[in-house]
Protein backbone atom coordinates (compact mmCIF):
# COMPACT_ATOMS: atom_id res chain seq x y z
CA UNK A 1 0.00 0.00 0.00
CA UNK A 2 2.78 2.38 0.90
CA UNK A 3 4.56 1.97 -2.44
CA UNK A 4 1.34 2.56 -4.31
CA UNK A 5 0.75 5.80 -2.49
CA UNK A 6 4.29 6.88 -3.30
CA UNK A 7 3.71 6.18 -6.99
CA UNK A 8 0.80 8.57 -7.00
CA UNK A 9 2.45 11.66 -8.34
CA UNK A 10 1.76 14.88 -6.47
CA UNK A 11 2.35 16.82 -9.65
CA UNK A 12 -0.43 14.96 -11.44
CA UNK A 13 -3.04 15.58 -8.78
CA UNK A 14 -4.03 18.68 -10.65
CA UNK A 15 -6.61 17.92 -13.30
CA UNK A 16 -5.02 20.11 -15.94
CA UNK A 17 -1.50 18.80 -15.49
CA UNK A 18 -2.87 15.26 -15.70
CA UNK A 19 -4.76 16.31 -18.84
CA UNK A 20 -1.62 17.70 -20.46
CA UNK A 21 0.26 14.48 -19.72
CA UNK A 22 -2.51 12.27 -21.08
CA UNK A 23 -2.75 14.26 -24.31
CA UNK A 24 1.01 14.23 -24.85
CA UNK A 25 1.25 10.52 -24.05
CA UNK A 26 -0.78 9.67 -27.16
CA UNK A 27 0.43 12.44 -29.49
CA UNK A 28 3.94 12.78 -30.83
CA UNK A 29 3.85 16.49 -30.13
CA UNK A 30 1.30 19.24 -29.60
CA UNK A 31 1.43 22.98 -30.05
CA UNK A 32 0.58 25.35 -27.25
CA UNK A 33 -2.53 26.48 -29.12
CA UNK A 34 -3.81 22.96 -29.75
CA UNK A 35 -3.38 22.11 -26.09
CA UNK A 36 -5.25 25.27 -25.19
CA UNK A 37 -8.12 24.39 -27.51
CA UNK A 38 -8.47 20.82 -26.29
CA UNK A 39 -8.24 21.67 -22.60
CA UNK A 40 -10.29 24.82 -23.04
CA UNK A 41 -8.31 26.98 -20.59
CA UNK A 42 -6.61 30.38 -20.65
CA UNK A 43 -3.06 31.08 -21.88
CA UNK A 44 -1.75 31.96 -18.44
CA UNK A 45 -3.27 28.95 -16.76
CA UNK A 46 -1.89 26.55 -19.35
CA UNK A 47 1.54 28.19 -19.36
CA UNK A 48 1.96 27.87 -15.60
CA UNK A 49 1.06 24.17 -15.64
CA UNK A 50 3.34 23.51 -18.60
CA UNK A 51 6.17 25.26 -16.81
CA UNK A 52 5.69 23.09 -13.73
CA UNK A 53 5.85 19.93 -15.83
CA UNK A 54 8.79 21.23 -17.82
CA UNK A 55 10.70 22.04 -14.65
CA UNK A 56 10.35 18.41 -13.57
CA UNK A 57 11.77 17.32 -16.89
CA UNK A 58 8.53 15.64 -17.92
CA UNK A 59 8.15 17.72 -21.07
CA UNK A 60 10.51 18.85 -23.80
CA UNK A 61 9.82 22.18 -25.47
CA UNK A 62 10.57 23.12 -29.07
CA UNK A 63 10.32 26.76 -30.10
CA UNK A 64 10.30 27.61 -33.77
CA UNK A 65 8.84 30.05 -36.24
CA UNK A 66 6.14 29.05 -38.68
CA UNK A 67 6.33 31.90 -41.17
CA UNK A 68 6.66 34.85 -38.84
CA UNK A 69 4.57 33.43 -36.04
CA UNK A 70 6.34 31.84 -33.11
CA UNK A 71 5.16 28.31 -32.45
CA UNK A 72 5.87 26.42 -29.26
CA UNK A 73 5.31 22.70 -29.22
CA UNK A 74 5.57 20.19 -26.43
CA UNK A 75 6.67 16.59 -26.34
CA UNK A 76 6.60 14.09 -23.49
CA UNK A 77 10.07 12.96 -22.30
CA UNK A 78 10.94 9.35 -21.42
CA UNK A 79 11.07 10.52 -17.85
CA UNK A 80 7.60 12.03 -18.11
CA UNK A 81 6.14 8.97 -19.79
CA UNK A 82 7.44 6.73 -17.03
CA UNK A 83 6.11 9.00 -14.29
CA UNK A 84 2.74 9.19 -16.01
CA UNK A 85 2.52 5.43 -16.48
CA UNK A 86 3.48 4.78 -12.85
CA UNK A 87 0.83 7.23 -11.75
CA UNK A 88 -1.87 5.59 -13.87
CA UNK A 89 -0.82 2.12 -12.73
CA UNK A 90 -1.05 3.19 -9.10
CA UNK A 91 -4.52 4.60 -9.69
CA UNK A 92 -5.59 1.41 -11.42
CA UNK A 93 -4.45 -0.71 -8.47
CA UNK A 94 -6.37 1.56 -6.13
CA UNK A 95 -9.42 1.20 -8.32
CA UNK A 96 -9.17 -2.59 -8.22
CA UNK A 97 -8.76 -2.66 -4.43
CA UNK A 98 -11.69 -0.38 -3.85
Amino acid at each position, binding site marked *: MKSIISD*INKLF*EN*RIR*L*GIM*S*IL*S*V*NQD*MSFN*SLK*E*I*LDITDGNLASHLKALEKNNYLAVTKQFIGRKPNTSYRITDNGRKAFQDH*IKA*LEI*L*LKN*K
Partner: protein
Amino acid sequence: MLKDVNKSAINKYFSSFVLQSTFKYNIMKNIEKQLENLNGIKELMEKSTQFLSLSGLSGIFAGVFALLGATAVYLKYNTFFSARYFQNLSFDKNQMLNGESLSGFVTFLLLIAIVVFVLAISTVIYFSYRKAKKTGNILWSNSARRLLINLFLPIFTGGLFIIALILHHLYYLIAPAALIFYGLGLLNASKYTLHDIRYLGFLEIMLGILSSFFIGFGLIFWSLGFGLLHIIYGFVMYVKYEK
Protein backbone atom coordinates in the same frame (compact mmCIF):
# COMPACT_ATOMS: atom_id res chain seq x y z
CA MET B 1 -10.82 13.27 40.64
CA LEU B 2 -10.43 9.83 39.26
CA LYS B 3 -13.43 10.38 37.14
CA ASP B 4 -11.86 13.54 35.70
CA VAL B 5 -8.68 11.77 34.74
CA ASN B 6 -10.66 9.08 33.09
CA LYS B 7 -12.64 11.64 31.24
CA SER B 8 -9.59 13.41 29.91
CA ALA B 9 -8.07 10.11 28.85
CA ILE B 10 -11.19 9.21 27.04
CA ASN B 11 -11.24 12.63 25.47
CA LYS B 12 -7.66 12.24 24.39
CA TYR B 13 -8.33 8.84 22.97
CA PHE B 14 -11.44 10.01 21.27
CA SER B 15 -9.89 13.09 19.73
CA SER B 16 -6.96 11.09 18.38
CA PHE B 17 -9.47 8.70 16.89
CA VAL B 18 -11.29 11.58 15.24
CA LEU B 19 -8.01 12.98 13.99
CA GLN B 20 -7.04 9.65 12.55
CA SER B 21 -10.32 9.15 10.80
CA THR B 22 -10.33 12.63 9.28
CA PHE B 23 -6.83 11.92 8.03
CA LYS B 24 -8.07 8.69 6.53
CA TYR B 25 -11.09 10.51 5.13
CA ASN B 26 -8.85 13.09 3.47
CA ILE B 27 -6.76 10.41 1.79
CA MET B 28 -9.88 8.64 0.58
CA LYS B 29 -11.32 11.89 -0.71
CA ASN B 30 -8.11 12.60 -2.53
CA ILE B 31 -8.16 9.16 -4.09
CA GLU B 32 -11.77 9.64 -5.15
CA LYS B 33 -10.70 12.82 -6.89
CA GLN B 34 -7.86 11.04 -8.64
CA LEU B 35 -10.20 8.35 -9.88
CA GLU B 36 -12.55 10.98 -11.21
CA ASN B 37 -9.63 12.45 -13.12
CA LEU B 38 -8.95 9.03 -14.56
CA ASN B 39 -12.21 9.19 -16.47
CA GLY B 40 -11.17 12.52 -17.95
CA ILE B 41 -7.88 11.06 -19.18
CA LYS B 42 -9.52 8.67 -21.61
CA GLU B 43 -11.73 11.39 -23.00
CA LEU B 44 -8.79 13.75 -23.52
CA MET B 45 -6.74 11.02 -25.22
CA GLU B 46 -9.55 10.32 -27.64
CA LYS B 47 -10.38 13.96 -28.22
CA SER B 48 -6.77 14.81 -28.99
CA THR B 49 -6.17 11.94 -31.42
CA GLN B 50 -9.55 11.16 -32.95
CA PHE B 51 -11.81 13.30 -35.07
CA LEU B 52 -15.19 12.62 -33.52
CA SER B 53 -17.31 15.08 -35.42
CA LEU B 54 -18.08 12.89 -38.43
CA SER B 55 -21.84 12.60 -38.61
CA GLY B 56 -23.75 9.58 -39.85
CA LEU B 57 -26.12 11.93 -41.64
CA SER B 58 -23.40 12.98 -44.07
CA GLY B 59 -22.87 9.30 -44.93
CA ILE B 60 -26.55 8.95 -45.78
CA PHE B 61 -26.50 12.06 -47.98
CA ALA B 62 -23.25 11.08 -49.72
CA GLY B 63 -24.82 7.70 -50.51
CA VAL B 64 -27.96 9.30 -51.92
CA PHE B 65 -25.90 11.63 -54.15
CA ALA B 66 -23.88 8.67 -55.40
CA LEU B 67 -27.05 6.76 -56.28
CA LEU B 68 -28.49 9.81 -58.08
CA GLY B 69 -25.26 10.16 -60.06
CA ALA B 70 -25.26 6.48 -60.98
CA THR B 71 -28.90 6.74 -62.05
CA ALA B 72 -28.08 9.71 -64.29
CA VAL B 73 -25.29 7.75 -65.96
CA TYR B 74 -27.52 4.74 -66.39
CA LEU B 75 -30.40 6.75 -67.88
CA LYS B 76 -28.17 8.52 -70.39
CA TYR B 77 -26.19 5.46 -71.44
CA ASN B 78 -28.88 2.91 -70.86
CA THR B 79 -28.14 0.93 -73.97
CA PHE B 80 -24.46 0.67 -73.15
CA PHE B 81 -25.13 -0.88 -69.78
CA SER B 82 -28.07 -3.00 -70.88
CA ALA B 83 -25.92 -4.49 -73.60
CA ARG B 84 -23.27 -5.28 -71.05
CA TYR B 85 -25.52 -6.63 -68.37
CA PHE B 86 -28.25 -8.46 -70.14
CA GLN B 87 -27.22 -9.46 -73.62
CA ASN B 88 -23.63 -10.37 -72.97
CA LEU B 89 -22.63 -9.20 -76.44
CA SER B 90 -19.11 -9.11 -77.62
CA PHE B 91 -17.69 -5.69 -76.92
CA ASP B 92 -18.87 -3.55 -79.80
CA LYS B 93 -18.36 -0.04 -78.52
CA ASN B 94 -20.12 1.72 -81.36
CA GLN B 95 -23.26 -0.31 -81.19
CA MET B 96 -23.54 -0.06 -77.41
CA LEU B 97 -22.90 3.65 -77.32
CA ASN B 98 -25.82 4.13 -79.68
CA GLY B 99 -24.01 6.51 -81.94
CA GLU B 100 -22.49 8.64 -79.18
CA SER B 101 -18.74 8.98 -78.94
CA LEU B 102 -16.74 7.12 -76.35
CA SER B 103 -14.92 10.26 -75.28
CA GLY B 104 -18.31 11.92 -74.73
CA PHE B 105 -19.29 8.99 -72.51
CA VAL B 106 -16.09 9.22 -70.46
CA THR B 107 -16.44 13.00 -70.14
CA PHE B 108 -20.00 12.57 -68.91
CA LEU B 109 -18.84 9.96 -66.38
CA LEU B 110 -16.12 12.25 -65.07
CA LEU B 111 -18.49 15.21 -64.87
CA ILE B 112 -21.00 13.20 -62.82
CA ALA B 113 -18.19 11.87 -60.62
CA ILE B 114 -16.95 15.40 -59.89
CA VAL B 115 -20.46 16.72 -59.11
CA VAL B 116 -21.14 13.77 -56.77
CA PHE B 117 -17.76 14.22 -55.11
CA VAL B 118 -18.24 17.96 -54.49
CA LEU B 119 -21.79 17.46 -53.16
CA ALA B 120 -20.67 14.62 -50.87
CA ILE B 121 -17.69 16.55 -49.49
CA SER B 122 -19.85 19.62 -48.90
CA THR B 123 -22.39 17.67 -46.88
CA VAL B 124 -19.61 15.98 -44.88
CA ILE B 125 -18.19 19.40 -44.02
CA TYR B 126 -21.61 20.85 -43.22
CA PHE B 127 -22.70 18.01 -40.92
CA SER B 128 -19.28 17.81 -39.25
CA TYR B 129 -19.45 21.53 -38.56
CA ARG B 130 -22.90 21.07 -37.06
CA LYS B 131 -21.87 18.14 -34.91
CA ALA B 132 -18.68 19.86 -33.74
CA LYS B 133 -20.68 22.91 -32.73
CA LYS B 134 -23.24 20.81 -30.91
CA THR B 135 -20.66 18.80 -28.94
CA GLY B 136 -18.38 21.78 -28.35
CA ASN B 137 -15.44 20.34 -30.29
CA ILE B 138 -13.14 22.15 -32.67
CA LEU B 139 -13.71 21.28 -36.34
CA TRP B 140 -10.31 22.15 -37.77
CA SER B 141 -8.16 20.39 -35.18
CA ASN B 142 -4.94 18.40 -35.36
CA SER B 143 -6.99 15.23 -35.52
CA ALA B 144 -9.06 16.56 -38.43
CA ARG B 145 -5.88 17.36 -40.34
CA ARG B 146 -4.43 13.93 -39.64
CA LEU B 147 -7.68 12.24 -40.64
CA LEU B 148 -7.77 14.08 -43.97
CA ILE B 149 -4.11 13.44 -44.80
CA ASN B 150 -4.42 9.74 -44.06
CA LEU B 151 -7.74 9.43 -45.88
CA PHE B 152 -6.65 11.25 -49.01
CA LEU B 153 -3.18 9.77 -49.43
CA PRO B 154 -4.55 6.47 -50.83
CA ILE B 155 -7.48 8.24 -52.52
CA PHE B 156 -5.16 10.66 -54.30
CA THR B 157 -2.95 7.74 -55.36
CA GLY B 158 -6.06 6.01 -56.67
CA GLY B 159 -7.08 9.15 -58.54
CA LEU B 160 -3.76 9.28 -60.37
CA PHE B 161 -4.01 5.57 -61.11
CA ILE B 162 -7.51 6.06 -62.54
CA ILE B 163 -6.21 8.85 -64.80
CA ALA B 164 -3.65 6.36 -66.09
CA LEU B 165 -6.43 3.80 -66.66
CA ILE B 166 -8.42 6.35 -68.66
CA LEU B 167 -5.38 7.23 -70.77
CA HIS B 168 -4.90 3.53 -71.51
CA HIS B 169 -8.62 3.13 -72.31
CA LEU B 170 -9.05 0.58 -69.51
CA TYR B 171 -12.42 2.03 -68.49
CA TYR B 172 -13.71 -1.23 -67.09
CA LEU B 173 -11.16 -1.01 -64.26
CA ILE B 174 -12.18 2.47 -63.10
CA ALA B 175 -14.96 1.33 -60.75
CA PRO B 176 -12.87 -1.45 -59.12
CA ALA B 177 -9.91 0.92 -58.68
CA ALA B 178 -12.11 3.65 -57.18
CA LEU B 179 -13.64 1.20 -54.68
CA ILE B 180 -10.32 -0.38 -53.70
CA PHE B 181 -8.40 2.85 -53.19
CA TYR B 182 -11.32 4.46 -51.35
CA GLY B 183 -11.51 1.44 -49.06
CA LEU B 184 -7.78 1.64 -48.39
CA GLY B 185 -8.18 5.35 -47.59
CA LEU B 186 -10.90 4.59 -45.04
CA LEU B 187 -8.80 1.85 -43.49
CA ASN B 188 -5.85 4.18 -43.24
CA ALA B 189 -7.95 6.94 -41.69
CA SER B 190 -9.74 4.73 -39.19
CA LYS B 191 -7.10 5.33 -36.51
CA TYR B 192 -8.01 8.99 -36.43
CA THR B 193 -11.77 8.79 -36.07
CA LEU B 194 -14.36 6.35 -34.72
CA HIS B 195 -12.97 2.91 -35.53
CA ASP B 196 -16.23 1.67 -37.04
CA ILE B 197 -15.18 3.21 -40.34
CA ARG B 198 -12.70 0.31 -40.66
CA TYR B 199 -15.55 -2.04 -41.51
CA LEU B 200 -16.80 0.28 -44.22
CA GLY B 201 -13.26 0.26 -45.60
CA PHE B 202 -13.10 -3.56 -45.60
CA LEU B 203 -16.44 -3.81 -47.42
CA GLU B 204 -15.42 -1.24 -50.07
CA ILE B 205 -12.19 -3.15 -50.74
CA MET B 206 -14.08 -6.46 -50.99
CA LEU B 207 -16.56 -4.94 -53.45
CA GLY B 208 -13.69 -3.46 -55.44
CA ILE B 209 -11.91 -6.81 -55.70
CA LEU B 210 -15.15 -8.57 -56.69
CA SER B 211 -15.93 -5.99 -59.33
CA SER B 212 -12.46 -6.34 -60.81
CA PHE B 213 -13.35 -9.96 -61.59
CA PHE B 214 -16.87 -9.24 -62.84
CA ILE B 215 -16.03 -6.82 -65.58
CA GLY B 216 -18.98 -4.94 -67.03
CA PHE B 217 -20.85 -4.58 -63.78
CA GLY B 218 -18.83 -1.53 -62.76
CA LEU B 219 -21.78 0.79 -62.39
CA ILE B 220 -23.68 -1.67 -60.19
CA PHE B 221 -20.67 -2.27 -57.93
CA TRP B 222 -19.97 1.45 -57.83
CA SER B 223 -23.58 2.14 -56.77
CA LEU B 224 -23.41 -0.56 -54.11
CA GLY B 225 -20.10 0.72 -52.71
CA PHE B 226 -20.55 4.45 -52.86
CA GLY B 227 -24.34 4.52 -52.60
CA LEU B 228 -25.85 1.71 -50.59
CA LEU B 229 -22.91 1.09 -48.23
CA HIS B 230 -22.68 4.78 -47.34
CA ILE B 231 -26.39 4.95 -46.60
CA ILE B 232 -26.30 1.84 -44.40
CA TYR B 233 -23.10 2.94 -42.67
CA GLY B 234 -24.45 6.46 -42.13
CA PHE B 235 -27.67 5.11 -40.70
CA VAL B 236 -25.90 2.69 -38.34
CA MET B 237 -23.54 5.44 -37.13
CA TYR B 238 -26.39 7.84 -36.62
CA VAL B 239 -28.36 5.37 -34.53
CA LYS B 240 -25.28 4.23 -32.59
CA TYR B 241 -23.73 7.59 -31.71
CA GLU B 242 -26.08 10.47 -32.39
CA LYS B 243 -29.59 9.44 -31.56
